[in-house]
């Protein structure tokens, strides 16, 4: 066979692909892999039954709960395993709102929450309207500054209004890495429960104080997919917003994924043990990316340069098509995410970048895994200026 003319030759770049999208999903931690395989053999039975295999499954599930509680600094009875981070968000936020249905159905949230939070907030409003208890109820979205940090004064003012069911603020932003002042918000809220989406930060940073309910997702810290964690603070009013079930944990429904829960716990334990060292390593590499990317003409690094996640950096390249950028980087072996409209299924630009007022096109999010090396970062930094230049040249720009 002859090579078709016009087919691009092998792309320059690293021999093996460099995955720089851990904020979407971190590769499975080696500690989780071993535990997962063992638990698949030992944790298959129904943990509610009274026979030997069931007792084994129950023991593994209780063990997973104990480990997760210890790693997150919470009580065992505050931990519920869910089937995903999104399910934990939905149950957490909607359960707080459900318990305050008589007060109202309005959720106050930062404008840069994860879409799962915004969808849940919209759902709470619709549910209130269906009950005839508040026609036209809408979530209140609180603005953020250019760095993506929520306006705490505006948030607390909105939370003191009538009909507020709950406030939702993320621990850290999943797209730009900016940390939110959760503890300060928790102190300033007067009786309104605070839901904290900790999916982007859990395992990487300690859980901030001040939450009434919180959510985390195992595959973001190196656990398996299909395992989320819902936390409900002891003494907080939470009412199941969905049909009940008769499982081990009254806050969950469906057959427990015991192997995934145990593997999630093992990964979390390993990640928490190594995070101080890893965070320094990752923050150093991210600082380097921030500095070097900003040297490319017309590239703006976005997100808080100080109060941020250690492993994540986002930037936007003026006049560059985000899809072309992601595709060309992929051709060269670099897997990155983008918040640009042309890369989204909705064709809408990222609501996070929009709320921050930063360029939504030409956007790239780089997030490091625990294995990302300095050499891989250097290879990326060597390739990027050429890729950006090439796309601009194709658009007829100098």
């Amino acid at each position, binding site marked *: 066979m002859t090579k078709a003319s016009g087919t691009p030759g092998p792309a320059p770049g690293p021999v093996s692909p460099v995955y720089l999208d851990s904020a979407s999903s971190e590769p499975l931690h080696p500690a989780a892999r071993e535990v997962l395989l063992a638990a698949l053999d030992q944790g298959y039975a129904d943990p509610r039954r009274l026979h030997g295999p069931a007792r084994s499954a129950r023991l593994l599930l209780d063990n997973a709960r104990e480990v997760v509680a210890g790693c997150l600094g919470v009580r065992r009875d505050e931990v519920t395993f869910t089937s995903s981070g999104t399910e934990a968000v939905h149950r957490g936020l909607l359960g707080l709102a459900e318990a305050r249905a008589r007060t109202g159905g309005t959720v106050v949230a930062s404008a840069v929450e994860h879409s799962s939070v915004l969808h849940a907030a919209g759902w709470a409003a619709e549910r209130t309207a269906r009950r005839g208890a508040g026609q036209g109820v809408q979530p209140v979205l609180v603005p953020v500054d250019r760095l993506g940090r929520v306006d705490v004064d505006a948030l607390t003012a909105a939370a003191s209004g009538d009909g507020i069911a709950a406030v939702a603020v993320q621990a850290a932003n999943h797209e730009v890495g900016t940390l939110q002042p959760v503890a300060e918000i928790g102190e300033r809220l007067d009786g309104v429960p605070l839901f904290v989406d900790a999916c982007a930060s859990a395992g990487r940073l300690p859980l901030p104080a001040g939450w009434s309910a919180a959510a985390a997702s195992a595959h973001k810290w190196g656990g398996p997919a299909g395992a989320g964690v819902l936390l409900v603070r002891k003494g907080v009013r939470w009412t199941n917003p969905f049909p009940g079930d008769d499982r081990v944990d009254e806050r969950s429904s469906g057959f427990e994924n015991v192997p995934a829960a145990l593997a999630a716990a093992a990964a979390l334990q390993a990640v928490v043990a190594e995070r101080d060292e890893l965070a320094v390593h990752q923050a150093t590499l991210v600082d380097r990316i921030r500095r070097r990317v900003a040297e490319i003409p*017309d590239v*703006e690094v976005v997100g808080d340069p100080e109060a941020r996640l250690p492993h994540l950096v986002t930037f936007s390249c*003026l*006049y*560059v*098509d*985000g899809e072309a950028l992601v595709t060309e980087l992929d051709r060269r072996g670099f897997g990155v995410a983008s918040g*640009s*409209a*042309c890369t989204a299924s909705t064709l*809408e*630009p990222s609501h996070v*970048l*929009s709320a921050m*007022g*930063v*360029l*939504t*096109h*030409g956007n790239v999010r780089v997030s490091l895994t625990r294995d990302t090396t300095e050499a891989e970062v250097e290879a990326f930094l060597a390739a990027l200026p050429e890729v950006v230049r090439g796309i601009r040249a194709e*658009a007829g*720009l100098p």
Partner: protein
Amino acid sequence: MTADLELDCRGMLCPMPVIELGRHLADVPLGGTVAVIATDVAARVDVPAWCRLRGQEYVGEDAADDGTPRYVVRRVT
């Protein structure tokens, strides 16, 4: 709002409206205005962000006769 130059970017996807703006700003004198008419929703964020990055003045948004959003920029450098 009046504008010294109108750029018809209907149907263009990001980043084309902003590329057009960058290409044609110098066509108006200092203090002059350019209006970008764009159907792409990203332009609502990207035109003001472009102004900030380029040190130009974002005047505001109105609508063209057919209702398409129109973003007005004043050349200040």
